[in-house]
C-alpha cells in the first residue's frame, strides 16, 4: 500500500515538474539559437566591413591606375608640343606605375570576386599597351606634328578612362551590395532579438498557465481525496454504528429468559452472518401462554442492517402483543401482516407454533417461511407443510392454522433459511437438517439447537444469519425450579 502511494506521489511529482523542465529546455534552446545567430550576424557584419574597406582600397587603386595613364598622357602631350625630353618625365613615371596599379586592381577584383570588372580591366591594360606601342613610341620617334597619331591616342585614352569608370562603377555597386547586406544582418539580429524576447515571454506565459492549471488540479485532487476519505470514514462509522445497534438488539433477545415448563424443554441458537456480511434480521421468541401452552415464533426480515433490525422488532411486538389477545397462529400472522403491509415494511417470513404441553398438540401457521420440522420418537423427521405468502406482501393474504397431534418426546424445530440455504441447494439443505435433527434426538435438554447447528455447519461456512429454536415435549413433569438462561 505504501509502495503504491509512493509511486503515485512520484508520478505526481514528475507531472508537477514536467512543465518547468520543458520551459527551461525551451529557454535554453532559444538562447542557444540567439547566440549562434549573433555569431553568424557578427561574421556577416565583420565581412561586410572588411569588404567595404577592400572596395575603398580597390577604388583608390583604380584611381591610381587612371592617374598613371593621365601621367603618361600628360608627359606625352608636353613632349609633343615642345620636343623637350625633360617633359617626358611624367610619362615615364606613369609608364612604370600603370602596370603596378593595374595588377593591384586585378588582385583586388579577384579577391572581392567582382568578376564583371575583370574584362574592362583587361581591356584597359591591353589598350594601355596599344597606346604605348601604337601612339607613344611612334610619337617619340616622330619629329614634327602627327595629328593622326594624336587623334588615335586620344581615342585609346578615352577607352582606358571608360574602362576605369566601368571598373569603379562595378566596385561602387558591389560596395552598395555589401552595405545592404550589413544592414540586413543588423536588422535581422534586431528581429532575432525581438523574436527571442517574445519566445521567452511566451514560454514564461505557458509555464505560468501550466503551473496555475497544475495547482488547480492538485487542489482538486486533494479536495477529492479528502472528500473520499471523509466519505469512507463516514461509511465506516455508519456501518460500525449500525452493526453495534444490531448486535446489541440481537444480543438482547438471544439472552432472554425462556419459559420454564415442567413438560417442555426449549433450546435456541443464533449466529449472525460472517463478519464481512451485514447483520440480518433473524429472530425467535418463546412466550408462555395460559393453560401451559407455549407460543414459539421464528422470523426473518428481508435485507440486512438497521432496517432489518427495526423490521424485526416491529414484527416481534406485533406478534407477541396480539398473542395476549388471541394466540391462534394464523390470526397472529394475519394481524401482523395487515400492520406490516400498512407501514410498507420490508418483507418478513415467519412461522408461529402453539405447543400445548397438556395435550401434546401443536398448532402452527407459516408465512413464507421454511416449514417447521417435527421429530417424533421412532419416526423420521417430517416437514410441517405449508404456508402462505410472507408478511408485508399483500393485505389479502390468508393464513391458515394447522394442528397436528404429537406424542411425548416429540420435538418441533423452527429455523431460518440460513440453516438450509447455505449451499443454495434447498432439497439438500433440508435433507441435511432433517438428518441433523434426527441425530439430536438424544442430546441433553437445552442442547438440541446447538447440536443441530454444529452438525450442519461442521464443514460449511455460515454465510447468512442462522437461528434455530427447538421445543421438546415430555411426559414426566420436570423438576427444575427456576428459569434458565438460554445461550
Amino acid at each position, binding site marked *: 500500500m505504501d509502495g503504491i502511494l509512493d509511486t503515485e506521489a512520484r508520478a505526481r511529482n514528475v507531472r508537477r515538474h514536467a512543465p518547468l523542465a520543458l520551459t527551461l529546455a525551451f529557454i535554453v534552446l532559444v538562447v542557444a539559437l540567439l547566440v549562434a545567430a549573433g555569431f553568424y550576424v557578427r561574421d556577416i557584419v565583420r565581412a561586410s566591413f572588411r569588404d567595404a574597406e577592400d572596395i575603398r582600397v580597390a577604388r583608390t587603386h583604380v584611381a591610381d591606375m587612371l592617374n598613371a595613364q593621365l601621367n603618361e598622357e600628360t608627359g606625352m602631350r608636353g613632349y609633343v608640343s615642345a620636343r623637350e625630353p625633360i617633359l617626358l618625365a611624367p610619362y615615364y613615371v606613369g609608364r612604370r606605375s600603370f602596370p603596378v596599379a593595374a595588377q593591384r586592381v586585378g588582385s583586388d577584383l579577384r579577391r572581392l570576386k567582382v568578376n564583371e570588372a575583370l574584362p574592362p580591366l583587361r581591356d584597359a591594360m591591353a589598350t594601355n599597351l596599344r597606346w604605348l606601342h601604337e601612339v607613344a613610341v611612334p610619337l617619340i620617334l616622330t619629329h614634327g606634328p602627327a595629328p593622326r597619331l594624336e587623334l588615335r591616342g586620344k581615342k585609346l585614352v578615352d577607352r582606358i578612362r571608360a574602362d576605369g569608370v566601368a571598373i569603379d562603377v562595378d566596385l561602387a555597386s558591389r560596395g552598395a551590395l555589401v552595405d545592404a547586406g550589413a544592414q540586413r544582418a543588423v536588422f535581422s539580429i534586431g528581429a532575432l532579438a525581438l523574436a527571442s524576447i517574445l519566445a521567452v515571454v511566451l514560454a514564461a506565459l505557458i509555464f505560468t498557465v501550466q503551473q496555475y492549471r497544475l495547482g488547480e488540479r492538485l487542489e482538486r485532487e486533494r479536495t477529492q481525496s479528502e472528500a473520499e476519505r471523509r466519505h469512507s470514514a463516514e461509511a465506516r462509522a455508519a456501518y460500525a454504528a449500525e452493526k453495534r445497534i444490531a448486535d446489541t438488539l440481537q444480543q438482547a433477545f438471544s439472552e432472554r429468559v425462556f419459559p420454564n415448563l415442567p413438560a417442555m424443554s426449549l433450546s435456541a441458537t443464533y449466529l449472525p452472518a460472517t463478519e464481512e456480511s451485514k447483520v440480518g434480521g433473524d429472530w425467535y421468541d418463546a412466550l408462555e401462554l395460559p393453560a401451559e401452552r407455549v407460543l414459539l415464533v421464528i422470523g426473518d426480515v428481508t*435485507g440486512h442492517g438497521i432496517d432489518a433490525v427495526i423490521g424485526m422488532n416491529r414484527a416481534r411486538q406485533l406478534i407477541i402483543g396480539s398473542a395476549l389477545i388471541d394466540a391462534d397462529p394464523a390470526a397472529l400472522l394475519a394481524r401482523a401482516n395487515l400492520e406490516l403491509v400498512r407501514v410498507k415494511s420490508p418483507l418478513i417470513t415467519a412461522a408461529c407454533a402453539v405447543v400445548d404441553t397438556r395435550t401434546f398438540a401443536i398448532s402452527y401457521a407459516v408465512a*413464507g*417461511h421454511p416449514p417447521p420440522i417435527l421429530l417424533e420418537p421412532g419416526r423420521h423427521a417430517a416437514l410441517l407443510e*405449508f*404456508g402462505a*405468502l*410472507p408478511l408485508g406482501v399483500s393485505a389479502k393474504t390468508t393464513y391458515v392454522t394447522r394442528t397436528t397431534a404429537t406424542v411425548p418426546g416429540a420435538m418441533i424445530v423452527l429455523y431460518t433459511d440460513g440453516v438450509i440455504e447455505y449451499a443454495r441447494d*434447498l*432439497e439438500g439443505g433440508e435433507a441435511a437438517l432433517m438428518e441433523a435433527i434426527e441425530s439430536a434426538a438424544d442430546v441433553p435438554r437445552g442442547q438440541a439447537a446447538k447440536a443441530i447447528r454444529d452438525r450442519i455447519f461442521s464443514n460449511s461456512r455460515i454465510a447468512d444469519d442462522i437461528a434455530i429454536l427447538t421445543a421438546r415435549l415430555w411426559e414426566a413433569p420436570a423438576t427444575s425450579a427456576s428459569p434458565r438462561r438460554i445461550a
Partner: protein
Amino acid sequence: MSGEMVDVVRLSGELEIARKGEIRDALAAASTGTAVLLDLGEVTYADSIALTELLRFCAEATRNDRPVALVIRTPQFARLVQYAGLAGAFKIFSDAAEAMEYLRERAGGS
C-alpha cells in the same frame, strides 16, 4: 383481448442481491400488458431480496387486476417457491405454453 397483450418476463440462473437492478428492470419493463407471464423455468435459486422483488411484483400486478402466471421447473426453486407461499397465491405452471394458455383464457373470459 389476445395473447399479444401478455407481458413476458424471463429470468434465469441464480437470482440474488447482486442482480437486484437487473431483476427490477426486467419486471419494470412488464408494465403494459393486461397479464404477466413470469417465466422462471431456468431459475435455480433466489435469495430473499430477489424473492421479495418477485413477490412484490406479483402482488402489485394482482392488485391491478393483471393475472400473473409463473413458470417454474427446477426442483430447488420449486421448493423455495413452495415454502415462500407463492403456490397458494399465484398460478404456477411447469410449462410456458400452458401458462400462456391460462392467461389467454383469463383475458378472454374477463
